[in-house]
Every structure is written in C-alpha cells, then in structure tokens.
C-alpha cells in the first residue's frame, strides 16, 4: 500500500517546485544519478538527461506532452551490467510497464532502480508538437497551457490538436508500480500536488523531500477514474474499428502496402530487445535463384520479400508483452497504424492468459513460462 503526501507549490511556480524536488532527490542521496526529462538546448524540445550533479537540473519538465522514445530501453542500457549506483528514472506508465516486462526478460535489473512515475495526460506526435511549439515561447509555456485542465485530468488541446491515439486509448493514466508517484491529476497546480510513496521506499523519505502527509487523495482518485472511463470508451471504439478494417488477409495487406521495411517500429519498440533480429540474420538473406523461383511461381513478387511475415513474426514474438505505448506508429515514416493492430491483438492474446503486461514483476511472462496443465484442448482434436 502506498502512502500519500502533498508537495506544496512555492510561489505559484510548478516548474520551480519540481526543479527543487528533483534536486532534493540527488542532494539527499535518495538516488546517485537521475534520468529526468529536461529542455533541449534550444528550449523547444524535452529529452531525457542523465544527471549526476544536482546543479545540472535546470529546466526539468516531467509534464511535457512529448515522448521521443520509450525510456524502458534506456533503463535497460543503464542497468544491464548490475550497477552499484542507485538510479532514479522519471517515467510515465507505459515506460514503467515496459521496464517491468523487460525485467522479466532479464534485460533490466531492478535492484538499484528507483522509479519516479508521473501521471500522463497524453503526448503529441513529434511533427504535431513541432508545429504547436511555433506558437509558444518554449516547452515550459506550452506545458503550462497543456496542463491547464489538470483538475479534470484532461489535456488542454493545444491548437485544437488531439494527442496520440495510443494515449487516447491508454488504460493506465497513473504510474502504477512507481516507487515515487507524482500524482497531479485533480490538483490545483498553483497550490499543491500529491506525491505517493511505495511501502518499499517511504521510510524517512518524506522529510527529506519536503513532503507533508495527507489523509486522502480523493480528488486524484476521482479525476483519474473519469480519465480512465473516457479512455476505455475510446479504446473499445478503436478495437471495433480495427476488427472492422481487417476482415481478411487482403485488408491486412492493404494496411501494409506502404511498409518500407525501415524497421523503425522494431527499433522503437521497448520490448524488441533482440541483439540480432531474425530478420537481420541469414534466414532472410535469400539466394538470388530463390527470388527468381518465387517470381516464376507467382508471376511477380513484391520486393523486398517477407513484409507480411515480418509484422506477423514480430507480433508473435512480442505481443504478449505489448504495453501499447504507440512508439511503433509514431516512428513509422509512412503512417502505418502498427500500434493499433498490435494493441488490438495484444489485448486478445493477453486476455487468453489473464495477463496484463507491467502489472506486476512477480507475474511471469506466459510465453516464457511452461505450465503442464494449460489449454488441454490444443493439439487434441
């Protein structure tokens, strides 16, 4: 059970308060090093920075409606060789869930990891964000406007633009499983925000981080529920839309007609961690005569070959752990709705095993676990 606290916003300045909070994490040695999103050099964008020196927390921005990559991949890079340092990482729910899935796949070591989660109202596609950013002074102003409906746990739609579909249909607006959760839904951001600490970490922490205990986080719970209800509605419509569009092999192939095999979707996917993907291996380096034989058999063939097989294989390999972060679609240069199919099929596959990726580290990955008594009807007609 987590314990609830509030963090008072000083001088009506949310960002100054967050800056002090993150600096305290380092100064008080709650963590030795902190991965936190900060403004880029030109102040228009926000990217993860790995900070050792607390003075280098200059313009931290955990609220920016932009997610240039799923940080779970970074957490893997930072923890794979069992570091002794305590690493704090600021992440949204999709990144936390992906991190937990990677830990099950032995790609992340959680031993010295402190997860600082933050509620998420949704992020923009990078190109839309860049358009919007033209109309603002910088990332800070943009964020403050976007947060102006935080009491209702709704994003303010900048320039009338919607956030990513993956976000609109995300069933996890709150950062479950975080050690330190920045719970700002339902709060007046000029006054105070909630911070919830897990059992594991809350000992002696609150005083060091200027946190004041609170009895209840009712407005956070209620606004989060409202947000979730909306998202589930959107998600269900999305599922219906996908299953309508993909009725047969022909219609699925239609979705893939622009695929250029750049493998961006694979690269951005936090779950795709294979050092050598089978599609980069010799398995798919066909002999030229093989191509000619296929061409002869069918009359003509699409080049490069195996486009459908790539997507189906990737699906077969990782969809059980798909956290629907949508980075695959966001990275696709040709606008293929990869995230939509993977989320839809992921939902069904995960339901078969009553599995929710990222729900708990204790819950084993069903695809990686052998159970003798399971699906007894399969293989026995």
């Amino acid at each position, binding site marked *: 059970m987590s314990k609830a606290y509030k963090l008072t916003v000083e001088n009506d300045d949310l960002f100054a308060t967050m800056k002090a909070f993150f600096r305290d994490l380092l100064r008080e040695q709650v963590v030795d090093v902190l991965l936190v999103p900060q403004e880029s050099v030109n102040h228009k964008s926000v990217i993860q920075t790995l900070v050792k020196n607390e003075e280098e927390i200059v313009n931290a921005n955990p609220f920016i409606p932009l997610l240039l990559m799923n940080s779970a991949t970074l957490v893997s890079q930072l923890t794979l060789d069992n570091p002794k340092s305590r690493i704090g990482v600021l992440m949204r729910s999709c990144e936390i869930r992906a991190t937990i899935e990677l830990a099950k796949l032995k790609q992340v070591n959680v031993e010295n990891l402190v997860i600082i989660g933050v509620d998420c109202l949704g992020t923009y596609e990078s190109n839309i964000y860049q358009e919007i950013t033209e109309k603002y002074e910088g990332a800070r102003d943009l964020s403050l406007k976007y947060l102006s409906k935080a009491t209702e746990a709704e994003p303010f739609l900048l320039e009338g633009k919607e956030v990513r579909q993956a976000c609109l249909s995300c069933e996890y607006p709150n950062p479950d499983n975080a050690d330190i959760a920045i719970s700002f839904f339902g709060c007046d951001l000029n006054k105070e925000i909630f911070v919830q600490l897990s059992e594991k970490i809350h000992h002696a922490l609150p005083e060091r981080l200027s946190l004041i205990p609170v009895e209840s986080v009712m407005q956070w719970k209620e606004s989060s529920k409202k947000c979730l209800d909306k998202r589930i509605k959107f998600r269900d419509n999305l599922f219906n839309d996908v299953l309508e569009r*993909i009725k047969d*092999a022909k219609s699925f*192939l239609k979705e893939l*007609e622009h695929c250029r095999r750049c493998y961006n979707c694979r690269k951005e996917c936090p779950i795709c961690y294979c050092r050598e993907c089978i599609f980069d291996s010799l398995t798919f380096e066909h002999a030229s005569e093989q191509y000619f034989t296929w061409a002869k058999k069918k009359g003509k063939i699409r080049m490069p070959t195996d*486009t459908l097989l790539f997507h189906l294989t990737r699906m*077969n390999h990782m*969809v059980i752990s798909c956290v629907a972060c949508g980075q695959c679609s966001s990275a696709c240069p040709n606008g293929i709705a990869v995230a939509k199919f993977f989320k839809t*099929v992921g939902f069904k596959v995960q339901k078969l095993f009553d599995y929710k990726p990222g729900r708990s580290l204790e819950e084993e990955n069903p695809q990686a676990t052998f159970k003798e008594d399971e699906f007894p009807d399969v*293989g026995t007609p």
Partner: protein
Amino acid sequence: MILNTILENMGFEAERVWIRWISASEGKYFANIITEMVDKLKKMGPNFLKTTWDI
C-alpha cells in the same frame, strides 16, 4: 494459442494451421492426420496468400 489469436484477428484462415501432438513413433497416426488435413484443405480451396504477390 497466441498464433491462432493473431491469425484469427488479422484476417487469416486459422483453420489452415493445425497443431497436433504426434510422437516420432506414431507413423500411422501422422499419416492419417496428414490425409485428413489435405482433404480439408482441398475442400477449402487454394490459399489466397499463395497467389497474391503483395505479400
């Protein structure tokens, strides 16, 4: 199960993919299954994926 779910939901004929437990010593059983499968497949007709070049 995962494969079946993928095939069913992405518009493929999952009935063309069969999973059976057959030991190396069950030659006759294997032959029977294959005969049965070929019959069923013949009735289903050619697979769209065989002829489409857009794959």
